């Protein structure tokens, strides 16, 4: 009996030791310490204009180009399209396949075309990413029909997406095409985007993707 008591005590002690460990680790507390004098890199307010984190167009802020992205995008092939009336063609650079801009009295909107290998996380994930960019809550799969419709792009079955945010809106096309997913996204001022819906459809209808599989 005595030895079993000793064993129990030992067991209890080690349990206590184990349970006390998580509380023994460093607690988050306000602290104060001295460091050698630092030189601020930027003290001139003028330098702020070049600060890369807050470009005038928030849409440009969203895409972080990771290593390998450009190469992957380059494999998707090229596309041809007609620039709708009143839209301005910008230079496509980096991972962008095409880049257009439209402005009106309300503001401006930018159209970007991107292509990535695979399904890039799936239809819903990508649409929810766009929704988040204009401050909308993530959507459930059963709500998709409310703002998407099947749409033929370059003769293949794609999806047309219409997202209205408070300040910004997105009109988009999404097309799985020979192992790649193409994203056509018009994003910008809410009114500008919505006023250009007809033009956006004209643009999507004009898109022809390079197709070496037929």
């Amino acid at each position, binding site marked *: 009996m005595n030895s079993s008591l000793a*064993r129990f005590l*030992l067991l209890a002690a080690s349990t206590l030791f184990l349970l006390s*460990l998580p509380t023994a*680790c460093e607690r988050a507390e*306000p602290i*104060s310490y001295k*460091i050698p*004098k630092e030189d601020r*890199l*930027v003290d001139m307010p003028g330098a702020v204009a070049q600060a890369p984190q807050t470009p005038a167009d928030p849409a440009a802020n969203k895409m972080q180009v990771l290593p390998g992205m450009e190469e992957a995008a380059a494999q998707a092939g090229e596309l041809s399209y007609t620039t709708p009336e009143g839209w301005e063609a910008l230079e496509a650079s980096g991972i962008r396949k095409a880049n257009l801009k439209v402005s009106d009295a309300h503001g401006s909107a930018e159209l970007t075309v991107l292509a990535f290998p695979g399904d890039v996380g799936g239809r819903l994930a990508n649409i929810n990413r766009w929704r988040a960019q204009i401050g909308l809550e993530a959507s459930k799969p059963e709500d998709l029909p409310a703002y998407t419709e099947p749409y033929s792009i370059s003769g293949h079955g794609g999806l047309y997406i219409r997202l209205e945010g408070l300040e910004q809106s997105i009109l988009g096309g999404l097309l799985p095409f020979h192992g790649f997913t193409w994203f056509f996204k018009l994003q910008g001022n809410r009114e500008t985007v919505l006023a250009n819906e007809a033009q956006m459809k004209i643009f999507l209808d004009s898109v022809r993707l390079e197709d070496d599989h037929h």
Partner: protein
Amino acid sequence: MKTLFTFFSSLKLTVVLLSFSMVLIFFGTLDQVHYGIWHTQKLYFESFLVVWAYPQEAPAYEQLFWLRIPMPGGYLLGGMLFLNLLAAHLTRFQLSTKKIGIFLVHFGLVLLLVSELLTDLLAVESQMPVDEGGRSHYSQSYRDNELVLIDRSHPDYDQVHSIPATLLKPGERVDVAESTLSVRTLSYYPNAALGRATSGTPLETAANRGVAVKMGIVVTPQAETYAEDDINTATAYVEVFNGEDSLGIWLVSNVIDERFPPQIVQSGDQSWEIALRFTRQYYPFEIELIDFSHDKYPGTEIPFNYSSEVMVHHMEDSTKSQKALIYMNHPLRYEGHTFYQASFANQDKTSILQVVRNPGWLLPYISVLLMGLGMCVQFGMHFFKFLGKRS
């Protein structure tokens, strides 16, 4: 008491616990797709209980969305295994020379379990980017943030008052260490997108001081990301008080960093720089990057070596200064910290070192040695007994 002891020392318990561990690893691996390794580790292995939910992308989600599987987490399983092993030892094993090998193996295993727990609790990881020709004396976390108020008025040093971001809870007021200031958090976003308010729309901001007002910055909260190569833009609106006087409300975010003019909190003739930044750890030594090499196999883009040639300058004791070459599997161990070659940037001009402080780093080595030794002893004894019998 006896039944409790029989329960903890039973071999059946070991089998059940090991089976649960396999289940945990299986579901943990499944969920790694959503959360990345870091969050999965927290969720599954550094917890007592975990509930697995049927994933959205899986087939028949519409029918099975309600499916939840609760299971014991890593701490619970590890702890139970630890007790199980200990209890089994106390009941079954007598310390005799015959059993010394088995004893060593099990002791090594217990030590391994303890060292894992210690690593979980005590290890701190951070990153130190250094430019070629440049020096750095601090590293920064890539997940944890701190709110800092820096007093630069002293000619010899800067005084940093830091509040961990985990204490920034909306509505709560936190006293700033070693000062009369306190900070009340209005809102805190673990991740957010910051942008300029477009012309024409009114600027909606809680801030009344600093860069948010001057540049018209608006905040759009975002879902937290767990991806490995993504960072969360922690952002907060904070009100600073000196005693009971409000000094203003600032927008702080870890992207409003050195590229921006400092945000200044002014009270009388005293001033502090305020910023939310990745938690920094300062060292009493500087690491100078002499050269970073990124060697490729000739004629290809395939790398075969990344290495950083560094000089460590100790600020207080120059005899401790030393040169080192850090490369794959050859970290620099210095003053309780380990510096690994982690990454590089800036066209091979910046090397990024991973800094790990793990007080228990030696324990796994010892435990593996003990287990190896135990096995050698045990099998060796049998082997020599067998040889003896034959002759």
